[in-house]
């Protein structure tokens, strides 16, 4: 019998909807896989076997009644990043602060998944409050890269990406504030998409940086990501910043791309994202990918986006500023961790001691950075200037998209680094998001699609594709076409050594 965990979401959906296999069987197969390998990978913080199987059985019984599937991925299970609220199921954001918090409400993304008949296997590990690029900032221990146990799976959404690479889930949801979907996708050999800002509701997404956060689909193929994108996308009256426009036709675009023809598509290579700091194997993989795009018929030109080099410093003013305010609510008064409530401390002291005990070092670092950047007398120099840089970056994108349909770059300058290698060097850690941050600042759409393995270390490399706001479909057309030309890499994920079947 076929190993159900090795199939794509599209293939699984087809089998489930044709009633060749039940959603309960598919879900159980993934739960079994999680049981086998997750002690080793640690992609999940919480597994909800009961909830997932109940959802699967509901899909099966509806199909048995002759009803049409409620969505193209009905019955296909999914791993949900632990930053999206789930009614009745813990949502920790990888933080001790929320270790025992059970939300009373579903995020809009969660609700849409439930309505689409998608069984939610569990909640995936992440850097605390999505702050990090390695998942090492999780209060509950790091996630390991299925390609090499000693290496990071990227972050903050390392859990979601690793669950895909380890065949624990065929689909996953991530959130991307500075690259937290794309960079984990790149270093685990999976596909990750940051939709246009406002394309997917943020309601129930525990905020890190409100003007940058964006939930999006993660999968092993471009088509699977597109199928998930259409389920979670769209306007939400509960999110004032969500866009009241139809979801771009991403599935149709992916199917068109799969025909392997990019004639007439103009691709711009971002000049600023190469050279010093870029690992040789990453650089060569990227160049190979550009050659393949040309071979598919695309016209490739070099494009300069001079302000992109200021994106990282601007990001590290804006994101911490917003986070310093967003995380103020964790004060022990209404929910979450509370320490020192022994009758000898004032409310203010309980707040302070709880925050001291509940937040990890990186979260504290960013809260302090942001508090400082917003302070009276510094606001203009820091937050104000960063917002101006943000405008300049948007203009760079606008100018570039007048010349080309999509931009490309490596997703991240290196392959997966070793666990522990950068934990004491925040700047080195921050550089992992160098290429992904501009799209968050400008709010446009971007994807990371595997571009094979680095020739020097055999680890996955990601190709980043960027498209204008609301032109998410272009990512899928180019990504799917490239994916066909490149050939599969997920079949080359090493069997997880040390795992007893």
């Amino acid at each position, binding site marked *: 019998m076929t190993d159900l965990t090795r199939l794509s979401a599209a293939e699984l959906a087809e089998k489930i909807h044709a009633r060749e296999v039940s959603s309960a069987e598919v879900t159980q197969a993934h739960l079994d896989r999680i049981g086998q390998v997750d002690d080793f990978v640690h992609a999940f913080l919480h597994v909800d076997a009961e909830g997932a199987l109940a959802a699967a059985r509901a899909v099966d019984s509806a199909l048995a009644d002759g009803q049409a599937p409620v969505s193209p991925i009905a019955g296909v299970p999914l791993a949900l990043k632990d930053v999206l609220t789930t009614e009745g199921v813990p949502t920790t954001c990888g933080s001790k602060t929320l270790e025992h918090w059970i939300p009373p409400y579903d995020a809009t993304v969660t609700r849409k998944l439930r309505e689409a008949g998608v069984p939610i296997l569990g909640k995936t590990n992440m850097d605390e409050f999505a702050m990090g690029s390695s998942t090492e900032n999780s209060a509950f221990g790091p996630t390991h890269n299925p390609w090499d146990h000693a290496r990071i799976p990227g972050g903050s959404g390392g859990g979601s990406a690793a669950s895909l690479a380890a065949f624990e889930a065929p689909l996953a949801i991530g959130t991307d504030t500075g690259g937290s979907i794309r960079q984990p996708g790149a270093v685990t050999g999976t596909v990750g998409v940051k939709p246009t800002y406002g394309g997917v509701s943020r309601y129930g997404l525990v905020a890190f940086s409100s003007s940058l956060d964006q939930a999006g689909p993660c999968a092993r193929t471009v088509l699977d990501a597109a199928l998930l994108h259409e389920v979670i996308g769209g306007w939400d009256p509960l999110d004032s910043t969500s866009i009241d426009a139809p979801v771009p036709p991403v599935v149709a675009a992916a199917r068109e791309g799969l025909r392997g023809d990019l004639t007439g598509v103009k691709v711009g290579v971002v000049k600023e994202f190469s050279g010093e700091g870029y690992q040789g194997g990453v650089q060569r993989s990227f160049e190979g990918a550009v050659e393949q795009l040309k071979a598919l018929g695309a016209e490739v030109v070099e494009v300069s986006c001079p302000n992109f080099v200021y994106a990282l410093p601007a990001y590290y003013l804006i994101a911490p500023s917003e986070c310093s305010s967003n995380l103020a609510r964790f004060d022990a008064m209404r929910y979450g961790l509370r320490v020192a409530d022994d009758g000898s401390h004032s409310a203010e002291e309980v707040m302070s001691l709880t925050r001291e005990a509940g937040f990890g070092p990186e979260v504290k670092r960013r809260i302090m950075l942001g508090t400082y950047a917003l302070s009276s007398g510094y*606001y203009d120099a820091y937050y104000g200037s960063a917002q101006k840089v943000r405008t300049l970056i948007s203009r760079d994108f606008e100018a570039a998209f007048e010349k080309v349909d999509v931009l490309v770059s490596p997703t991240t300058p290196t392959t997966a680094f070793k666990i522990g290698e950068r934990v004491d060097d925040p700047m080195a850690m921050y550089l992992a998001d160098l290429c992904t941050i501009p799209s968050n600042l400008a709010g446009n759409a971007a994807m990371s699609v595997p571009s094979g393995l680095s020739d020097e270390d055999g680890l996955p490399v990601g190709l980043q594709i960027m498209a204008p706001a609301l032109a998410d479909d272009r990512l899928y057309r180019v990504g799917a076409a490239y994916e066909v030309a490149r050939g599969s890499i997920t079949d080359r994920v090493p069997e997880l050594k040390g795992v007893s079947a």
Partner: protein
Amino acid sequence: MTAVAEVMDYAEVVERFDPVLGLEVHVELNTKTKMFCGCPNEFGGEPNTHVCPTCLGLPGALPVLNGKGVEGAIRIGLALHCEIAEWCRFARKNYFYPDMPKNFQTSQYDEPIAFNGYLDVTLDDGEVVRVQIERAHMEEDTGKSLHVGGATGRIHGAEHSLLDYNRAGVPLIEIVTKPIVGMGERAPEVARAYVTALRDLLLALDVSDVRMDQGSLRCDANVSLMPKGSSEFGTRTETKNVNSFRSVERAVRYEMTRQAAVLVSGGTVTQETRHFQEADGTTSSGRTKETAEDYRYFPEPDLVPIAPAREWVEELRGTLPEMPAARRKRIQTEWSLSAEELRDLFNSGAVDLVEATVAEGAKPNDARSWWVNFLAQEANARETELAALPITPAQVARVAALVDSGELTNKLAREVVKGVLAGEGEPDEVVEKRGLKVVSDDSALLAAVDEALAAQPDIADKIRGGKVQAAGAIVGAVMKATKGQADAKRVRELIIERVGA
């Protein structure tokens, strides 16, 4: 502690100093739902029953702006002759306090929806003072803390505190005056008159319950003194907990006398928040702002900018009712009232009823007299509001018409009104049932006149002898005999006729 002069005699204060006022009024709008969520906006309720993820600040929840709140803000701005912003935003005001769920208040900062207006305020003697309005901006209310144990009900000395978030997120409009200078000894009266005039205006707009006792109208009074002849403002204090119009006046007056005493003794006024003590009319030191609080304002990223269309603003301008000041002027002219009569009319709270009675055909003076005199006494005796009396303006107008046509005397008319108040039906029914019609049958009256003349022949002689004024005694006897149902004028005519005959 040695006895020191804590306050200066008021006459001396205004001789030596010029007061400067700044009034900040918070108004809770009477929208159906809260400012950023769908929870009911109602005063009271069991604690923490009007709450949801958004107004509790649960992780992941997002605000959605209440359009009716914006409408109310614009209408208030227009009524205060303000300019309405073409584009404005909300900001976050960051500070930690347990009754604030997010530990930031969603408020407007440097981009208020309305600015640069004025309000004409009528003082007790009819003088009109124009108070300049700096701005009116939108924000959300906080929850309420209830400090249990301790003597004062304040946090200091309390054993524990309870939090009720029903009020959290209720729409608030903050209306801030420009510095009010040059009022001299009338400054406290101006402060009261301003808040009263603002209350009347808000009531006319029907945007708020404007109940100071329930906190839907709250006033913070900023007071400072500058030596006579100086134009440099002194250090100000901000007095809170001012819960009635009279308290506004008392608080300002007290602060003037207190600050003056501090200044003449060589001290300096501390910039601080003070609390008004209703019991003895003093203020006491609250929290001292040793360092200026840094609220780290920045634009609220969870809400989109507000750009009220000019057509909408003009449409709202069209919905403005007649403003209280204009109404006073109109009524004074139309009804030819003296300043004093106008003041009494407005103080009686009967204006609406009098206007309605006039609209039903009564003469303004008659209508005014009925409500301000007789019915006001009745309401007083019943310990109820005028408007709650069981009589309608139409009924009062009918009684006035019966008096006009000579069918009732004033005395009978009062009996009729009493009958209506007692639930005996319409005025005409009361007249019928109680038999209160004026006796207009001359033959019946003549009998009574003859009887009275016969009973007092000496008076009859006096009249005959030319002392016509002596007829009064006979008129009285006739009125008594007819139980007041005779027309005194006609009785007098008949007496003269009889005696002379």
